[in-house]
């Protein structure tokens, strides 16, 4: 198979079945994630978007089909990927600095160098001064910034984000979206982002992938060509939103009728 | 539960018993010290069918211990709950009593036995009293914690509906605190049980599971020692799983809480 250098991750006919629950989360998903682009996956509840992200992370294996990163099969979690969880998953017994250096030191980076690198990222996410704080003393937004810094610090090829702003209040969420784009534009990494919110998806991404209701398949792929920083209310924005919602609406209806069944 | 899980759970026990039986039959282990499970079962059966005063010896032992346990537990729980309420209600009482409680709490019941024996002599009374004392502490502490943990908003809700202080205590505080109190009772019962058996080792005149085990040990009757211990464990598991969890199911579990 010829490997296109512009494609970072390929998914071919990926299916995921959870036998104990008798649930098919994903069915025959085929997708190309473009390199250095911000891709978001949206879909109704239960459509399997988080499952898909877990497969990309290597936390789980597909029942069928294959997933390749830079041509190599993804079989288990590894430092070529970074992951940001919705509930932060910070190590409570480590300080902010300790959390961020963890990914570096376990991969062989010397402690002093690791701390230098960590401090750069701490500055990047605007948390300078909090290096020695313990996570439980920080607010939600701050914790998520630490999580992002931690995931980026060891320079993974791909950044995976699972509804990272879902637990934050509306204000902080908006702020974090802006921050994320600012940080991303510095590094221009491949990002795969999962969210419920269509507004968030269009604000952030280059590509929006719409997943169908369970079992999830790719229902639509929409390119978002609007230059950044984006305006939530500009005409182009609203057009894209209409298109996405159009595809989504159908799926949400299906989801609701499934719940009632 | 899946059959495989049940099988795996029973495997080590069955395996252990089987190995033991074989080793004993082959005389590879000292059967005076480690009688085979078969012998143990036989001894216990013998005790069960041995009669004195028209009642089975084993049953008498179990019954006597149970009687003491019940009495000690009831005393301990009642006084413990009262004490806990007092601690929760009066800040002064708490400040005064707390250091004493903290000091006495870790002292094992059996250590207090000689003292109580001097005061009360041998027999039922001593055993019950010490049992009650050890039950008192966890019950009191947990009652105190439970009452103090009540969400003040539901108290406000009740009072604005017109409930007076006594009604609030009984119909708001106590049900809320019930989870804690039940946990305290669970802990207290565990302690009471262990202490009663332990004190029976030294203070019982002639009946009781503890007495039975200790007497057997003194006469080097290993069968009865092992049998007695197994019986104790079984009875306690039944007591805890059956009684406590049963009460929990009828009360706090229905309200959405669960015991730790």
């Amino acid at each position, binding site marked *: 198979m010829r490997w296109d250098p512009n494609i970072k991750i390929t998914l071919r006919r990926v299916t995921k079945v959870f036998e104990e629950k008798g649930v098919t989360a994903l069915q025959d998903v085929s997708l190309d994630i473009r390199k250095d682009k911000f891709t978001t996956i949206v879909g109704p509840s239960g459509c399997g978007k988080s499952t898909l992200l877990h497969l990309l992370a290597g936390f789980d294996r597909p029942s069928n089909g294959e997933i390749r990163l830079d041509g190599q099969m993804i079989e288990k979690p590894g430092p070529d990927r970074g992951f940001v969880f919705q509930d932060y998953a910070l190590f409570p017994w480590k300080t902010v600095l300790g959390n961020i250096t963890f*990914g570096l030191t376990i991969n062989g980076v010397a402690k002093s160098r690791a701390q230098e690198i960590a401090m750069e990222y701490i500055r990047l996410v605007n948390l300078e001064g909090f290096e020695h704080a313990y996570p439980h003393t920080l607010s939600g937004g701050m914790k998520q910034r630490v999580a992002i810094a931690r995931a980026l610090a*060891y320079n993974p090829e791909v950044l995976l984000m699972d509804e990272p702003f879902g637990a934050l209040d509306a204000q902080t969420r908006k702020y974090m979206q802006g921050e994320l784009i600012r940080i991303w534009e510095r590094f221009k990494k491949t990002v795969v982002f999962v969210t419920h919110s269509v507004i968030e998806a269009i604000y952030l991404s280059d590509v929006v992938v719409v997943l169908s209701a369970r079992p999830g398949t790719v229902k639509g792929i929409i390119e978002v060509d609007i230059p950044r920083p984006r305006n939530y209310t500009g005409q182009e924005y609203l057009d894209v939103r209409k298109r996405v919602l159009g595809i989504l609406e159908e799926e949400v209806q299906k989801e609701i009728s499934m719940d009632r069944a | 539960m899946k059959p495989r899980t049940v099988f795996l759970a029973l495997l080590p026990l069955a395996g252990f018993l089987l190995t033991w039986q074989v080793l004993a039959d082959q005389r590879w282990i000292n059967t005076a010290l480690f009688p085979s499970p078969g012998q143990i079962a036989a001894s216990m059966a013998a005790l069960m069918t041995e009669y004195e005063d028209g009642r089975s010896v084993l049953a008498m032992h179990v019954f006597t211990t149970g009687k003491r346990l019940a009495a000690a537990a009831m005393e301990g729980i009642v006084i413990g709950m009262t004490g806990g309420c007092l601690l929760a209600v009066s800040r002064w009482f708490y400040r005064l009593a707390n250091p*004493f409680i903290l000091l006495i709490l870790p002292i094992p019941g059996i250590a207090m036995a000689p003292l109580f024996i001097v005061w009360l002599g041998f027999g039922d009374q001593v055993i019950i009293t010490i049992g009650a004392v050890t039950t008192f502490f966890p019950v009191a502490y947990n009652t105190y914690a439970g009452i103090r943990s009540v969400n003040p908003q539901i108290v406000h809700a009740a009072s604005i509906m017109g409930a007076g202080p006594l009604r609030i205590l009984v119909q708001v505080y106590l049900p809320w605190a019930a989870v804690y109190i039940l946990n305290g009772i669970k802990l207290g019962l565990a302690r009471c049980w262990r202490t009663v*058996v332990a004190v029976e080792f030294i203070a019982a005149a002639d009946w009781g599971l503890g007495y039975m085990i200790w007497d057997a040990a003194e006469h080097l009757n290993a069968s009865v020692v092992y049998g007695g211990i197994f019986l104790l464990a079984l009875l306690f598991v039944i007591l*805890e799983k059956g009684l406590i969890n049963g009460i929990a199911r009828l009360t706090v579990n229905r309200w959405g809480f669960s015991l730790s």
Partner: protein
Amino acid sequence: MTLSTLRTRTAETLLPFLVGGILWEGGCRFFDVSPQILPPPSLIAAQAVELWAKGALRQHILASLFRLLLGYVLAVTAGIILGALIALKSDIRRMSSLTLSLLISIPTITWVPVLLITMGLGDRTVITAVFLGGLFEMIYSTALGVENVNRRIVDAARIMGAKRTDLFFRVMLPASLSFVIPALRLCIGYCWRALIGAEILSAMIRWGLGKMIFEARFWNDVTVMFIGLLSIGLLAVLFDRVFLRRLERITIEKWGIAARIDA
């Protein structure tokens, strides 16, 4: 903690004892209570000083502490290792949960007769009793702690490339401390109980607080009994406050993952 809070804290703790002590002393004298029944604090203190000067009290205390700490350390080490194993290997877990529940229900004191007939009446028996007293509880709590580690924290470490040893020692173990450290406190309580029980029942040992209390019965020496009981109480509280609570404070409380009530 500031000096003034330390002073208020100490005062708050000591005052009730002062009040209690005065009431006790007063009550004994006023009601002319026989020192054979309830000795006044002054008598207890005097006898304690005498016993200490003779060296006897020190011997008893050291003997008990030695057995306690040895058994405790062994129980904690073995308990953590076994508990972690049980939690991590699901087959082992399914095999051992029933056995563990049964073993935990057995009152520690009942192991003593078994140990007495198999191991004799000496030191080793007491230490083994202490060991068994703490072991099962430690296994259970460690297993619970490891099982309850937030899956996502483990995932986060995995994706950063943590290998299995890293994962266990640097992630799962610290994360399980919110269960393991309170268990350390619980365990020492069980160990104390095992210690005293075993000392009382072992005829061949010479020293030990349990032994001291038990022997005092033969001379109806209630004062010595009180000395023994108070020593146990004080040592237990001291150890708890000075070591275990501090350990709790510098670990799980500092990290914000401490659990709630203890009793």
